[in-house]
């Protein structure tokens, strides 16, 4: 146990027991899993992806590539970073992707076979036979943790938020930017990834305004959080920056105990990016050995968690950062072996820090090897004086800093390589993104604070007016050692494995190989070697990849360019993305006043279009679908049926030009329709294909009521509204969608008049009430409009009624029809009745390809009208002629042959004039009325083939059928006009 007696934020009074890789350990409240492992001297935390090399902790934050674990105790979550898991009592975690254990992993054999697995080896072999054979083994070896097997029990929600300025990151720059912005009175939102605000000040002992930085943080944040115009969220990661300043952020473990995560959609006028920077590793043989850690990470473990990674450290650097850490190591009782500096001449300020701590500095030095497989025993290095091996039990290295420009890049901002800081920093701006501090490549505390003041000031000084405005001062800080870096790459052809991407096991040799094989674009190198493609998404490794490629090519880093950072910044659970929309909430089903009644009365429900659920059929006990449909159809044909037509679309059109509009919308005329009458209309798309059909009534001189199919209601409304508002703005017509205001029930069958006649009513059902007439009045005191339309081919009354009265009227009708066994009818039965009648359905026979002539509906197309939607395309169809598919009827020779919808049509053997695919069955059923199988179909040149035989070729059955007119029952339509 290597835990300091004092210091850190851990609560030594609250020990927590936990299990890691099957062994029990103890940590404290305030630990992360990673810090507790450091404190317990657990060196091996995982295995690498390809070679299964033992790996230890490299970092202390979300960029950690090695310590990926399966969190068994909390929903069996895979691939969590130990550095991000707060320690809990009885927490249990396992390293991913190793077997049988992280300490002893059999797949480490890959390390021995490594010469056979260069970058991209799989493109060059396994070509004999099927890849599936090989991929079975490769897939087993790939993947990290395993997917949970149980349903996710977590609950989630999404919320929207607006802000004048969103500040991402509550480090010193973020806090200062928030302070200045808040004082202007604007709405400010601050997000911070960590549990507590302060950013790197949480880990480093700095001074601000002459006192401990932590005091400054708590005072500033306390004041800001108390303000009305500030929204402040900790443990919240901004994961992506989208169009028009929309930032998505995920809040972990919100205060509400029932909530797992909350996804924020934040629309801000300006976004200040104060996300800081992460340390970059150096590249040297053995840089992945357990015990080789980034210098800043080591300091964080010591400072915040009082967890000490070792007793004797060797520091390796190419920049000034680690010199500031010497004090921390000393205080923690760590012996500092020496500093190996790649640079030839560290600055005087740096050297004086080393002298103060009595640490020898060896300049112009390179590590050539790390001793120890599962823990560091020593380091071999080279300098002018030759090769030397020193003993140490851990190595801290620093290769400089990577500004976290991810959000800036998501927003469309460019990055540029800045030689002085050897980093990719924000370049040309996009949207309202303003990077400050470390994220902007400004690594000095003082300069970062000043930048925060300046940026916030520029954003808002205009809107608050200069006179009333005095910018809050930038707080003072103590002197810092100036940041200096000299990027020195390992020599070419380095011996030993030096890793560039730790997680995907990409080495310097892999990069060199890719370049040798002419993968020169950085994107090619990335894809060929998989560098930067692992779950850390290259946060720490990408700049090194770019550096190495530029070295191999002999080009400047700035010209090799950077890879695109794609969102999210850190992985986001699908649970949070899905929000609360589960089950019925995904797309709430629309209901009619009769929906509940239908379900209570045993309806099997089906999707009816436009998100309506409606009865499919009403099975009685013991009935299968075919029985129920036959019974329902028989009721309609012989006595009386009733169905709920409320999902149909209904539009009211008013205005002097309505007749003209309808003339242009439909293929037939409507301006000459008498008031009080309805007419069936056919609507085409502009490309001449069937769009919708339905009956439109003329209620008044300038007032029409249009009905359309359920699924078509939305598209038809859009179609008419578009024409009125964008093309025919001269037409004086108002269009209102009244679908939801009306409920519709259709009483149909030879006894429909008798049933309706039992109700007390002022509507005369006498012979003058003809087919396609409508009458307004009352039924049992309920105001209704009754229309004679028929979608079944039988005598039929469509009763339209205000929604609120619908169920009452429905029940009255059911009661009145009881003695005639009035039967509720589902959509499957309606379908059968339609097929018997040969009524064309744009959704079935239309199939996006059929024009009205193909459908045998030329009778409804008035080509003498000067124009209507689709007419020009019909002229084209007529002119071009050729073979089109026509709607036909099919009667199988075997009257009971089962025919499936969608069956293909092939020429029958006797006719050799045609070959190949001839069309398909659009709708088929066993007709309960005709007691035989019937079908509607689209058949090439079908109108000229009545009487011919075709083969109906189904997946399971085939049969021969005769081509007929598409009308099997009452072709003259006498019954519905009765």
């Amino acid at each position, binding site marked *: 146990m290597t835990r300091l007696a004092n210091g850190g934020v851990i609560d030594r009074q609250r020990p927590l027991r936990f299990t890691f890789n099957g062994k029990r350990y103890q940590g404290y409240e305030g630990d992360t899993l990673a810090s507790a492992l450091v404190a317990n001297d657990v060196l091996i935390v995982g295995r690498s992806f390809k070679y299964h090399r033992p790996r230890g902790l490299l970092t202390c934050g979300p960029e950690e590539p090695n310590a990926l674990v399966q969190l068994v105790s909390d929903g069996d979550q895979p691939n969590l970073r130990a550095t991000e898991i707060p320690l809990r009592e009885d927490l249990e975690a396992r390293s991913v992707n190793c077997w049988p254990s992280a300490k002893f992993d059999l797949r480490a054999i890959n390390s021995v076979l490594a010469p056979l697995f260069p970058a991209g080896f799989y*493109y060059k072999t396994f070509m004999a036979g099927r890849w599936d054979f090989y991929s079975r083994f490769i897939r087993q070896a790939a993947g990290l943790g395993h997917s949970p097997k149980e349903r996710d029990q977590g609950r989630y929600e999404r919320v929207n938020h607006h802000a004048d300025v969103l500040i991402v990151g509550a480090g010193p720059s973020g806090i200062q930017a928030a302070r200045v912005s808040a004082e202007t009175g604007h709405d400010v939102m601050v997000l911070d990834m960590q549990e507590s605000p302060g950013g790197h000040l949480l880990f480093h002992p700095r001074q601000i305004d002459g006192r401990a930085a932590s005091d400054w943080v708590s005072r500033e944040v306390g004041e800001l959080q108390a303000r009305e115009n500030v929204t402040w969220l900790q443990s919240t990661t901004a994961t992506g920056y989208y169009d028009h300043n929309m930032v998505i952020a995920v809040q972990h473990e919100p205060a509400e105990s029932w909530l797992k995560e909350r996804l924020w959609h934040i629309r801000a006028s300006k976004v200040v990016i104060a996300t800081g920077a992460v340390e970059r590793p150096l590249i040297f043989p053995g840089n992945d050995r357990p015990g080789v850690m980034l210098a800043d990470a080591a300091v964080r473990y010591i400072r915040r968690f009082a967890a000490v990674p070792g007793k004797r450290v060797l520091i390796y650097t190419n920049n000034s950062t680690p010199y500031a850490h010497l004090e921390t190591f000393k205080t923690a009782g760590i012996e500092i072996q020496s500093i190996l500096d790649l640079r030839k001449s560290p600055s005087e300020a740096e050297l004086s820090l080393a002298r103060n701590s009595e640490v020898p500095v060896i300049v112009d030095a390179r590590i050539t090897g790390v001793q120890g497989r599962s823990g560091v025993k020593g380091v071999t290095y080279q300098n002018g004086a030759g090769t030397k091996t020193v003993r140490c039990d851990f190595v801290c290295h620093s290769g400089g800093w990577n500004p976290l420009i991810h959000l800036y890049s998501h927003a*469309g901002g460019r990055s540029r390589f800045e030689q002085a800081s050897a980093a990719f920093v924000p370049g040309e701006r996009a949207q309202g993104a303003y990077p400050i501090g470390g994220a902007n490549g400004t690594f000095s505390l003082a300069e970062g604070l000043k930048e925060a003041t300046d940026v916030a000031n520029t954003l808002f000084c205009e809107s608050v007016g200069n006179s009333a405005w005095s910018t809050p001062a930038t707080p003072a800080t103590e002197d810092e050692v100036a940041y200096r870096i000299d990027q020195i790459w390992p020599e070419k052809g380095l011996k030993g494995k030096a890793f560039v991407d730790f997680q995907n096991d990409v080495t310097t040799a892999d990069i060199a190989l890719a370049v040798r094989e002419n993968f020169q674009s950085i994107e090619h190198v990335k894809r060929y070697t998989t560098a930067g493609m692992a779950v850390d998404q290259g946060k720490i490794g990408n700049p090194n990849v770019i550096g190495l490629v530029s070295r191999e090519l002999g080009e400047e880093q700035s010209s090799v360019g950077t890879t695109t950072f794609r969102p999210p910044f850190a992985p986001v659970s699908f649970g949070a*993305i*899905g929000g609360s929309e589960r089950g019925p909430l995904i797309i709430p089903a629309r209901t009619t006043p009769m929906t509940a009644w239908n379900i209570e009365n045993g309806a099997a429900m089906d999707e009816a279009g436009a998100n309506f659920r409606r009865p499919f059929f009403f099975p009685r006990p013991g009935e299968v679908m075919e029985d129920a449909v036959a019974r329902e159809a028989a009721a309609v044909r012989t006595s009386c049926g009733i169905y709920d037509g409320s999902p149909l679309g209904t539009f009211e059109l008013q205005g002097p030009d309505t007749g003209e509009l309808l003339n242009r919308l439909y293929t037939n005329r409507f301006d000459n329709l008498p008031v009080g009458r309805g007419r069936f209309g056919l609507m085409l798309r502009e490309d001449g294909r069937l769009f919708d059909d339905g009956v439109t009534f003329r209620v008044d001189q300038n007032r029409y009521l249009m009905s359309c199919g359920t699924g078509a209601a939305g598209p038809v409304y859009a179609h008419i509204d578009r024409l009125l508002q964008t093309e025919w703005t001269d037409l004086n017509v108002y269009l209102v969608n009244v679908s939801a205001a009306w409920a519709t029930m259709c009483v149909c069958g030879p006894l429909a008049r008798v049933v309706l006649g039992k109700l007390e009513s002022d509507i005369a059902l006498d012979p003058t009430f003809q087919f396609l007439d409508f009458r307004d009045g009352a039924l049992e005191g309920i105001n209704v409009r009754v229309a004679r339309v028929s979608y079944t081919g039988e005598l039929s009354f469509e009763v339209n009624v205000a929604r609120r009265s619908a169920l009452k009227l429905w029940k009255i009708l059911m009661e009145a029809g009881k003695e005639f066994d009035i039967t509720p009818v589902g959509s499957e039965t309606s379908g059968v009745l339609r097929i018997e009648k040969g009524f064309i359905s744009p959704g079935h026979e239309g199939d*996006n390809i059929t024009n009205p002539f193909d459908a045998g509906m030329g009778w409804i197309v008035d080509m003498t009208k000067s124009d209507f939607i689709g007419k020009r395309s019909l002229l084209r169809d007529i002119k071009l002629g050729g073979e089109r598919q026509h709607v036909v009827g099919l009667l199988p020779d075997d009257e009971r042959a089962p025919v499936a919808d969608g069956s293909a049509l092939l020429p029958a053997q006797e006719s050799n004039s045609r070959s190949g695919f001839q069309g398909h069955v659009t709708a088929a059923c066993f007709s309960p009325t005709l007691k035989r199988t019937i079908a509607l179909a689209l058949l090439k040149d079908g109108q000229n083939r009545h009487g011919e035989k075709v083969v109906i070729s*189904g997946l399971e059955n085939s049969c021969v059928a005769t081509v007929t007119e598409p009308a099997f029952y009452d072709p003259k339509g006498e019954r519905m006009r009765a």
Partner: protein
Amino acid sequence: MKRFSIFSIARNALTGHRHWEKMWRSPDPKREYDVVIIGGGGHGLGAAYFLAKEHGITNVAVLEKGWLGGGNTGRNTMTVRSNFLREDSVPFHEMSLDLYHQLSRDLNYNLMVSQRGMITFIQSSAANRIALQMANTMHIYGAEYRMLTLDEVKQKIPIFDPSPNMRLPVRGGVYQPRASMVRHDAVAWGFARAADARGVDIIQNCEVTGIQQEKGAVTGVETTRGLIKAKKVGMAVAGHGSVVASMVGQRLPITTQPLQAWVSEPVKPVLNEIVVIRSYYGTYLMQSDKGEIVVGQGADPYPSYAQRGTFPIIEDATTSMLEVFPSFGRLKLLRHWAGMLDIPYDGSPIISKTNTCGFYIDVAGSGGFKTTPAAANTFAHLIAKDTPHPLAEKLGLERFSSGRLIQEGGVSANR
């Protein structure tokens, strides 16, 4: 071209992999070629390969404005399938599948064709009808597309765990056993290496800025690397069709819309088949060889060349994914991106001559990865012979003025 094999790897291992050849040259452009192909993605490189291999035309340049395979070839979800609705679509897509299954050997480059099979959930009677129509049409052309009962679906996909109060209950599925996943980058690189070996010049970082014509016929292309003469120019620039075609004044019946895809962090194998949840939003998902759950959906709802998508699409798709795979709630989204789709009005590919003599176009249709080898092959045929390949006869631009569209309901996007 030195052949790749397990032996070549072993041999090179002995010399520390220091002696691998370049996979393709990076030549400077010549002043003139017989054929210039604009676009170094799968379609363009493939067309060059087939021009050389099947038509003996090797004096060919492929011009790529960025890096090979950097467009939609590197941005798709790697799925290849032939479950289409129309008799004019199915054979073309079947040809593509046939070619995919033999290309690894022909190219001596492992495209990692993983025949996982695709299962489309059926969640309404309308979906059932369309599945049947597709299945029957495909059956005629020898393509297997099988209806599955709910139990069969559950058997094939053990982690399928539909929510008990699911908005649209899954009734069953429809299954194409031959649908596969193909390593997308390998398609570009494999074609590039094989085309290069046959003498094709592949020229990267070479953007076409104009097309020169004389008397209605193409004479060459202006590029950022100078004028390159050619009497035949083929365009295979998924996501930039209108931009390049406008250089000869050709308008196209397409819109360019982002198609997004995203992946989870990699996990051990849990899902073998490619699964399509068609009912809500047309969401599809699969697990890559690497272990990532790869997810996608229909195109974004407006034209864009921004190569980024809109987040609500991901939210919608996630809700439908979690309905059937609720255990994925704690898997994490790792990366999301968008390709730019040139979506033809009818959703079918356009492989066509144009009003400008010698200027040929290959517009991929909605989701061009699956058609890559067939489109490349038939495009090469069209360029070489100036007449369409029999399987692409109906894919010309003429279909739009004649009204003989190939309306596809089974495509990933339509307008």
